């Protein structure tokens, strides 16, 4: 079985990761809906996971997989607190348009 010849090169995974990361950044910058911005952040976290795991596979290590596990934990914690913040904001002002939250601006 010669799998070695048909392996996907590392570059492909890295380009996929970079593409998804840039899509996430564009989402954060362009969208004004707070929930969609959060989803874009999730895309960015996932993009990082792809490169971590791709390098892992190429170095035959498990450290990157532990890292991506931790990234998932952080993502879950971040989402649960972040969405609670959105709900708290929504109570003060019934909108999730990020551009309307400017009371911190002096």
């Amino acid at each position, binding site marked *: 079985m010669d799998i070695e010849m048909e392996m996907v090169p590392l570059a492909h995974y890295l380009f996929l990761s970079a593409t998804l990361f840039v899509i996430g950044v564009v989402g954060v910058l362009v969208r004004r809906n707070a929930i969609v911005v959060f989803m874009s952040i999730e895309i960015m976290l996932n993009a990082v996971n792809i490169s971590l795991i791709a390098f892992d596979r190429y170095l035959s290590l498990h450290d990157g997989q532990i890292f991506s596990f931790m990234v*998932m*934990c952080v993502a*879950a*914690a971040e*989402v*649960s607190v972040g*969405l*609670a913040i959105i*709900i708290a904001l929504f109570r003060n002002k019934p909108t999730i348009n990020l551009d309307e939250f400017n009371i911190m601006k002096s």
Partner: protein
Amino acid sequence: MLESYLGAGIMMLMAIGIAGGMVVMTSMLGPKREFADKMEPFECGESPIVSPHQRFSVKFYLVAVLFVLFDIEAVFFFPWAILFKQLGMFGFIEMLLFILILGVGLLYVWKRGGLDWE
């Protein structure tokens, strides 16, 4: 190792095929007799027409958050359970500490009334 996913793939295709086939076949083969009462969406004791813009209560959110966080706690148990014998006492104490720390959170949520529905 990838070959071992063949079974899972076949099962997934079969599941999609059977579920999709059932939906398509019943709509194609079954007899259709339509009348006004039958076409009404059935909801027991509720008016079938309400505004879709009702908000859920925030209580649901608290339950969902607790579900997510304890889900992740549960995910840590999978590899631990596999390795339980191999890790011995060290692994046991390690996991005990982990559960204790999260137990403090559960206690806090409980005392704060996050688990009460009313």
